């Protein structure tokens, strides 16, 4: 598989992002607002205590700065395929001699790169300056955090990838995507760190795809996981990626036979 067409797609989506500057600044403001609101809530909850259930305030702020920061980079267009199936432009898409899945990914990655440079970095730098953050446990842990964040993105992307295929049957998948996003917001630990969950629930959640998106990288960053636990975390991430890729590919194959090109 030659890369040049996919680089062109990524470049195009990177460039098209710079077209709407006002929207972009509002996006950064939005991320900062979310981070500061959560900061306010947890300040009130902690009420001057230095730790609750063995979890320090710095750990909590580090968790939401990192996971909300990462969520700005983790670009997934849930409606790439559904919108094209709905308006019929899937036909044009299929006429190009490239993998459509590769194109979806390239499009999102171009966007993600833009977000990383122009959204994540400014938002995180401002948050760190104002609120403060835990330093990474070590250089090695920081490197492993980055790797695990990439896998986390992989999990998030492949969930969306598999669900988008349902559009072949349902055409409109808006509600399915909304439900998925609620699950991710609540169960991934980005709003409520999983430390505060009851132990049995935490035990279950650690095996779901949701916790492996943001919470696994954050735990590695904080140095909370031993080396075997880190390997287990990577294993869980990779297994989910494989499961969703497989599901997506099977649904894609079946869906193509069902495809109806809308509008003539």
């Amino acid at each position, binding site marked *: 598989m030659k890369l*040049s067409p996919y680089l062109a797609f990524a470049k195009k989506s990177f460039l098209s992002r710079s077209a709407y500057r006002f929207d972009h600044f509002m996006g950064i403001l939005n991320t900062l607002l979310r981070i500061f609101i959560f900061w306010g809530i947890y300040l009130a909850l902690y009420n001057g205590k230095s730790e609750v259930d063995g979890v320090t305030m710095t750990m909590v702020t580090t968790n939401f700065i990192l996971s909300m920061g990462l969520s700005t980079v983790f670009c997934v267009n849930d409606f790439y395929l559904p919108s094209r199936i709905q308006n019929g*432009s*899937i036909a044009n898409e299929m*006429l*190009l001699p490239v993998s459509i899945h590769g194109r979806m990914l390239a499009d999102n990655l171009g966007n993600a790169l833009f977000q990383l440079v122009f959204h994540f970095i400014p938002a995180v730098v401002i948050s760190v300056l104002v609120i403060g953050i835990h330093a990474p446990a070590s250089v090695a842990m920081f490197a492993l955090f980055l790797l695990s964040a990439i896998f986390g993105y992989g999990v998030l992307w492949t969930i969306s990838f598999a669900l988008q295929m349902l559009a072949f049957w349902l055409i409109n998948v808006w509600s399915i995507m909304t439900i998925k996003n609620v699950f991710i917001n609540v169960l991934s630990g980005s709003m409520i760190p999983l430390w505060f969950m009851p132990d049995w629930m935490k035990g279950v959640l650690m095996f779901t795809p949701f916790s492996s998106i943001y919470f696994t990288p954050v735990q590695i960053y904080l140095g909370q996981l031993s080396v075997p636990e880190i390997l287990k975390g990577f294993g869980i991430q990779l297994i989910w990626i494989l499961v969703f890729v497989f599901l997506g590919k099977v649904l894609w194959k079946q869906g193509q036979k069902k495809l109806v090109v809308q*509008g003539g």
Partner: protein
Amino acid sequence: MSFIEVNEVSKSFRISKRSAGIPGMLANLVVPKLEHKVAVKDISFSIEEGEMVGFIGPNGAGKSTTIKMLSGILYPDKGSIKVNNFTPYKQRKDYVGSIGVVFGQKSQLQWDLPVIDSFELLKAIYRIPEERYQKNLHRFMDMLDMAGFINQPVRQLSLGQRMRADIVAALLHSPKIVFFDEPTIGVDVVGKETIRNFICELNEKDKVTMIFTTHDMQDIEKTCKRLVIIDKGSKVYDGSLSGIRNTYGTTRQLDVEFTTDCTVAPIDKVEIRELDAPGGRKKRFLFENREVQIDSLMSTLLTTYHIRDLTVSEPEIEGLIRKIYNGEVS
């Protein structure tokens, strides 16, 4: 084995049917009504390399569905398709690099970007070598007179300009086969003529195999030697344009203007219609060309009556096609 081989291909869609208004919506929510619509039924044909074939048929006849199956977008339910040794729907990614498709109703250009940017993107997608890209681009731009709007965003183009840009976009990678799905829809007379000439030249000089669908009979008359007519998902005619006249258009019409009002005595196997008032000066004679010799009919009339003017006409292709669509001929 022909270049394009379509063998007993069928395709049907499930479409949901619901009655109008809120009651219909609620009923559909509980028990969805689905209906199978057969788009294409047991169609077979083969096309040789370098041929140019026109596909016509009324709206909803299955033309676009056939094109979409040929271009690897849709799976046939039954039957097989081979194009240039590929099975389009199974080898889509490898296959589509060798074809070009123009959907008159769906642009493949980037809406917000200048035309040339879309072309550059296609160059990367198809990995067109720089030299070939420049050569094709300049040649097509000259032929379609596009220099004036190549740097304008697509959303600001007129329909005719956009169509020309879309045609070039489909051809930059020098495809061996091109499918046109209504390439002249909504284009003015001059624009249509430019597009037709372009299509003809490409077929003649570059030996590109072409299939195109249209509702404009002039498109077909000016470009295609072979015609396939599809109606209600089935092939009803496959042959030359002139063959249609021989098969369906056997009626001839002779319009005569006499110098004075008169009545004409009945002639065997000829239908006489009055174009003016009965007994007037203008009359029309209709007959089958294999039953009545036109020269003997004319000499009969010329020797018996005084004639000012007379015209013989063959039926127009458009009229014949209309008859085929309406099921008036079989």
